[in-house]
């Protein structure tokens, strides 16, 4: 107990004694802010749960997600040992849901690694450089924004070939313009700040200013936007799957599962509803977490 309170005091000190100590203390305070936000914690717990489910899917599944049994098709939830029932080919929906979590998280991870990064680079470079570089980059952004997102993604997938990876790439390529806009807007407010002038007066070049001083301040609003966009990303992936250009059958992608269940929605509601609830849950969890992260990452309203 004393060790615990000692650790706590060490982390909450106003006078850290080393770089590592200061960083750990800042993280701990951020964690405390996040923890005090009940809804954000709920989102975090749900996401952690989903990640665990995705990792341990083979252990948790009761059936093979691909095994068809036409004699057992469209069983209601609870019937014949199927927790969430079966779909039109007699596959266990519960097991497919578990394996589908892997695909959803995979999609989210890949998009997160591409779209915000591209947006951040384009936006901050345009905002900081100004002049013709800004004009060129922002007009390119406008062109991407002017296309309906799904149509552009369709065009990319058609060119690259169907499949999850290409769908993700297509979504990323169509998702970056809003991030570029946000990053540019943030950069424009930051670039004339005195602390940017101050580092320029130390002889820092544009590359250092953008990457070391502007990026850290843009990242918080991008992270929030990303978590709020997750739902849309998952749904776009589902829409591509529905059109036959995303996840290919028999892959248990949640969006594809919904479109499979569409034909039976009147007499077998669970086929479309169960994956729908899963998408709703993961989207809600991301949104709640995004809201909580804003409180943690925004240094401007620190009321200590």
């Amino acid at each position, binding site marked *: 107990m004393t060790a615990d309170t000692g650790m706590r005091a060490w982390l909450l000190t*106003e*006078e*850290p*004694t*080393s*770089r590592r*100590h*200061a960083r750990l203390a*800042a993280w701990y305070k951020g964690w405390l802010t996040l923890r005090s936000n009940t809804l954000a914690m709920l989102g975090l717990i749900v996401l952690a749960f989903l990640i665990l489910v995705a990792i341990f899917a083979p252990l948790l599944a009761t059936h093979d997600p691909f095994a068809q049994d036409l004699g057992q098709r469209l069983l209601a939830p609870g019937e014949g040992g199927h927790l969430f029932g079966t779909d039109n080919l007699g596959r266990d929906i519960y097991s497919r849901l578990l394996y589908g979590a892997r695909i959803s998280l995979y999609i989210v991870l890949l998009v997160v690694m591409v779209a915000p990064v591209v947006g951040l680079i384009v936006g901050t470079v345009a905002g900081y450089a100004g002049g013709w570089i800004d004009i060129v980059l922002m007009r390119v952004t406008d062109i991407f924004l002017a296309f309906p997102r799904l149509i552009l993604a369709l065009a990319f997938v058609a060119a690259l070939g169907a499949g999850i990876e290409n769908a993700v790439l297509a979504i990323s390529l169509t998702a970056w313009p809003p991030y570029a806009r946000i990053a540019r807007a943030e950069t424009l407010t930051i670039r004339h*700040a*005195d*602390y940017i*002038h*101050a*580092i*320029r*007066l*130390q*002889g*820092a070049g544009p590359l250092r200013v953008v990457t*070391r*001083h502007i990026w*850290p*301040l843009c990242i918080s609003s991008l992270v929030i936007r990303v978590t709020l966009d997750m739902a849309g990303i998952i749904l776009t992936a589902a829409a591509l799957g529905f059109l036959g250009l995303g996840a290919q059958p028999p892959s248990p992608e949640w969006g594809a599962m919904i479109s499979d269940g569409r034909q039976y929605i009147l007499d077998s509601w669970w086929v479309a509803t169960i994956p729908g609830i899963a998408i709703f849950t993961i989207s809600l969890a991301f949104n709640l977490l995004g809201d909580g992260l804003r409180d943690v990452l925004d*240094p*401007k309203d*620190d009321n*200590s």
Partner: protein
Amino acid sequence: MNAIDISNLDVWFGSGADRADAVRDVSFKVADGESFGLVGESGSGKSTILRAIAGLVPTWSGEMTVAGETLGVRRSKAFYRKVQMVFQDPYASLHPRQSVDRVLSETMGLHGVTDIDKRIGRLLDDVGLGPGFRFRYPHQLSGGQRQRVAIARGLACEPSILLLDEPTSALDVSVQGEILNLLTDLRQEHKLTYVMVSHDLGVVGHLCERIGVMKEGRFVEVLAVDEMRRLEAREPYTRHLLESSINSIR
């Protein structure tokens, strides 16, 4: 030798019909180790002169020789080792995500200082902050403490000239005195040349030997602080400025 020699300086913003002339035909010299004050109303162009010297305003013409270097549009790295600037608002001049340690070590790293660890301790000591402040973030500091950090950053590369842009105007009166005394002490200790902008004649009188009075981008007159104290201004505008600042004290 003159630390700063400026002649016929014009600074403008915008171009064509939108062009606004902020500084017109300004010439002055600051000797080595001298402290020169620039006073005037807000918008009279005094801060703009500092920013032009520091290289933050590219649109200027005239001749500027600072620390033996004739200035062009770009500033060399060597220039920034000799000339540093302290900004007006300590709440805006420190990066909100960087600890004091990070600010000072990055500054020293850019100037190629090697024994950073030892130097930071000494620097914080110099500006009256203990080692306990080293790993704090700006939001954990008061206005006066932030300004001390900003001054420490300015001194990190051991410059010979410090440009001070109203370094106390954003602070409480009691803290203003502390910062002014600190600046006085540092100047003696490090043999610094100051160019200080202020709208407060009391602050300038405390720190500077000569002051240039500005109005609408031009110098009205340059007078010694002793003359100012004796209210011996030649120009009616300067007299008006002196009288109004005396009235505000009474």
